[in-house]
């Protein structure tokens, strides 16, 4: 009885959501008849119950590998859960995100759950277990989870369970032509996708009011980072993954299934558009989500970023090239001259070295470009941030202060690690996500002062330098200020440098979930106070980013590894002269060889 109620409630909630969003296709009654299957779906029977030995073997796998996050009872309340966002899944109610089955239905164990365990859920802490657990071990653990930990439903329950499966094999993807992409861009407005995912698809539409089925805050996906899509299956640019998620929805989240109010053809258009928004080698602007024919063509032609198979993220390159330009530096982000140079993808992790640690970094990457002229260097930073954060009122501390413990800026301590001690995990990081005091967004980069004198490979510490080798930190904050500090250690207060007066904020704009900040600073200042930038050298550089709505302030921030800025000098003339000489030499040798050969033949020699 209890179970029936629960299913009814869940189902009603799902339909209610659809109806509320004005997407309800007008279905009556409680069950689906075969002929009412949404387009592209086929009905399938219930799977067989797993063997008892498999369940037993799976239990051993579970209690070695999975229990730490998913908990003893599979309620998603293992010790890891308190500091994770997104949270580990609670298996008890049988709600799973990535499925080929219709909304509200259980997933296919040997396809959906098996792929989830094998490929992990990117953007969350769930890693790919392929290569760690054997195929059999993965099947065993699923046998255990689906029979022992899913309590409220059963794959063998003929009375209540049905499987309407998206038949992807019979639906070949539609080519991602500019027409398809353009139609998709119109459909995402019509189908109200943009209400949550934002006009330009950066997940900024309704970033703060969404909750999952358990009441924890949840964010809409950022379409520009397909490698973070939970269902990307280690194959992020594959449009079928998007088509599947869009067709079946994500159970347990506000993402509904669109199978009932879109045709298969429309779903391919939307999937093609969403896929085309995922970052490519070149930045492609989709202002306000308005996609003209030209833009659609650019989106269709965009070259995918190379993905690193070890991390399933875009490949990193630790050299940031900067090119020389004549005259004034660009004043806008759409200046043609930025195309002289490839943008670099800077991966950002949470700062977890010193307190207060940042266990959830909402900024996980920053795009950087740099150009320079005789006197100045200019950086173009772009990073996705669902919210523009500006602190209300004055800060209690001086901007040079770095130890903010006394002002109440502390890291989250793990309180109860199970629901017994902290029912509903109110004290967990996930529950507190949208309840932080709001500070300023910001970005900063550091160079070693007098980097020319560093004995290789020594560098100042990545975290604001050290006593022996201080750094200069250029920091922009969303209140519009830019400052330059001298840093001598992670817990040493900054010293302000008046070089800041010469640093110019050329542009700082937040638009549809993305910051664009252009900073210009002189190449040279006081040699003893700031880094003296020179061409043709590797200048170590570290990046820091703050998301004010994540409660980021002081040391609570996102941080990068060491990168190198290289201001590429103009190409020397020798580069053109030597190859010309070499070509001339080769031609002479060729003539000599052929001449000799001809002479020998004439002389009746060997042929």
């Amino acid at each position, binding site marked *: 009885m209890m179970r029936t109620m629960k299913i009814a409630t869940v189902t009603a909630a799902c339909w209610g959501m659809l109806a509320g969003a004005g997407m309800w296709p007008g279905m009556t009654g409680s069950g689906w008849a075969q002929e009412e299957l949404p387009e592209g779906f086929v009905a399938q029977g219930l799977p067989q119950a797993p063997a008892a030995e498999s369940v037993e073997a799976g239990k051993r796998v579970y209690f070695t590998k999975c229990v730490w996050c998913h908990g003893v009872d599979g309620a998603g309340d293992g010790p890891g859960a308190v500091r994770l966002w997104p949270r580990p899944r609670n298996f008890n109610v049988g709600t799973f995100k990535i499925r080929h089955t219709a909304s509200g239905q259980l997933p296919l164990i040997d396809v959906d759950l098996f792929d989830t365990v094998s490929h992990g859920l990117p953007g969350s802490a769930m890693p790919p277990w392929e290569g760690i657990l054997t195929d059999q071990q993965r099947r065993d653990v699923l046998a255990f989870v689906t029979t022992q930990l899913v309590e409220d439903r059963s794959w063998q329950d003929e009375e209540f369970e049905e499987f309407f499966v998206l038949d992807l094999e019979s639906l070949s993807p539609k080519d991602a032509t500019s027409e398809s992409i353009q139609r998709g861009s119109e459909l995402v407005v019509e189908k109200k996708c943009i209400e949550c995912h934002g006009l330009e698809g950066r997940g900024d539409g309704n970033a703060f009011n969404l909750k999952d089925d358990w009441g924890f805050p949840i964010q809409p996906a950022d379409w520009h980072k397909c490698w973070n899509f939970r269902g990307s299956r280690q194959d992020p640019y594959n449009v079928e993954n998007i088509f599947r998620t869009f067709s079946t929805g994500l159970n347990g989240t506000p993402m509904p299934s669109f199978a009932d109010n879109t045709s298969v053809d429309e779903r391919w258009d939307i999937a093609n558009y969403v896929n085309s928004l995922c970052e490519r080698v070149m930045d492609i602007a989709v202002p306000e989500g308005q996609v003209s024919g030209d833009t659609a063509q650019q989106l269709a032609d965009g070259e995918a970023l190379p993905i690193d198979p070890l991390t399933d993220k875009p490949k990193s390159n630790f050299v940031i090239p900067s090119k020389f330009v004549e005259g004034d530096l660009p004043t806008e982000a759409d200046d043609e001259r930025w195309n002289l140079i490839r943008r670099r993808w800077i991966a950002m992790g949470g700062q977890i070295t010193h307190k207060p640690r940042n266990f959830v970094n909402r900024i996980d990457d920053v795009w950087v470009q740099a150009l320079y002229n005789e006197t100045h260097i200019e950086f173009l930073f772009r990073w996705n941030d669902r919210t523009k954060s500006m602190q209300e009122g004055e800060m209690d501390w001086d901007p040079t202060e770095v130890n903010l413990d006394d002002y109440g800026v502390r890291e989250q301590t793990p309180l109860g690690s199970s629901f017994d001690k902290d029912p509903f995990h109110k004290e967990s990081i996930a529950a507190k996500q949208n309840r932080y005091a709001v500070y300023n967004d910001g970005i900063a980069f550091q160079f070693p002062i007098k980097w020319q004198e560093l004995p290789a490979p020594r560098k100042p510490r990545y975290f604001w330098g050290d006593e022996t080798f201080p750094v200069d930190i250029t920091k922009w904050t969303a209140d519009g200020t830019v400052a330059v500090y001298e840093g001598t250690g992670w817990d040493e207060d900054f010293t302000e440098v008046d070089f800041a007066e010469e640093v110019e904020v050329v542009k700082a704009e937040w638009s549809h979930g993305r910051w664009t900040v252009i900073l210009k600073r002189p190449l040279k200042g006081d040699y003893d106070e700031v880094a003296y930038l020179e061409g043709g050298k590797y200048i170590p550089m570290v990046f820091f980013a703050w998301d004010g709505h994540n409660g980021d302030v002081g040391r609570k921030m996102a941080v990068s590894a060491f990168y190198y800025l290289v201001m590429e000098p103009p190409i020397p003339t020798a580069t053109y002269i030597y190859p010309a000489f070499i070509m001339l030499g080769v031609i002479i040798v060729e003539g000599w060889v052929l001449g000799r050969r001809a002479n020998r033949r004439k002389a009746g020699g060997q*042929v």
Partner: protein
Amino acid sequence: MTWLKLVEGYMPMQMISELGLSILVFVLVNWALHRSGMGIPKFWAGVGVFVFIQLYLKYRIYPPIPFSVRAIYGTVSACGIFMWVSGSEKEWQEFKRPILNVMDGITNFHQSVRTAMLVVIPLALGGFAYSSFLPSFEEPIELRTVHPAPPATTKVHGKTFVLQVVENPYRVNADGDYDQGYTDARIVEQAMGRLMKDVNDPNYNPWDPNADGYIKYVREGGEIFFQNCHFCHGDNLNGRGLWAYAFNPIPANFTDAGTIAQLQETFVFWRVSKGGIGLPGEGFPWASVMPPWEQHLTVDEIWKVVMFEYWHTGYYPRTWD
């Protein structure tokens, strides 16, 4: 196509066997073709094998090998092919015949090939010279010592530990005495996936509510690990955590036989307590984001998490004898 993937850690063996097998297949096919009178001309066979090896090295091998190494392999394979085609005077004549034909321009076709070669060779060499003269800024290679020599003593939370004599206070037998033999016998099985032998035996399952002593400390260590360490070192302790992609040096992979498996437990205790910032210069203390865990954990918590790492990976700490 999983079977097509290169197996991690076995790349050299796989490369040699795959290349060997392909050449064997080629030799057999070539022999059969010759028997049936449709043999591939010697010249094209030689060029084909060379190109195949180069393409194999460039596109099949992962992680990719640098051009300089491919050039060495290329020279070796060219020498091998040269020996093969010049095995006898007859074969050598057969091999150079197409080259001489082009040089002599015996037909119109050969003449046009000769003209094309006259243009293409200088252009190709000139282009190669240009690209090698063009200043390029590749990522510099910096070699870091992953396991530098530890100090004799380390001071954590005001207490001095002599690394040679200190013992993990939680590595205890049923009587509560330090006993590595006892805990080694209760470590998880050394196999793929490294799993517990019998989860139903209360002595083995850290999650048994009645678990006591060593196995309970393992669970406590695991709780600390999964609230602090997994962000970088990963849910399987293989160094592929949530943020592993952002950091350089990359987080240590404890499941690799080259990390904690070849270290003493006290070394790991020192590394965990002092973190990246506590490394000597050859370990690049400025670049590591490893926290000095004494700032976040108590001495007891550090010992427990170290023990958990051994338990979960199925390795035994090295001992002094």
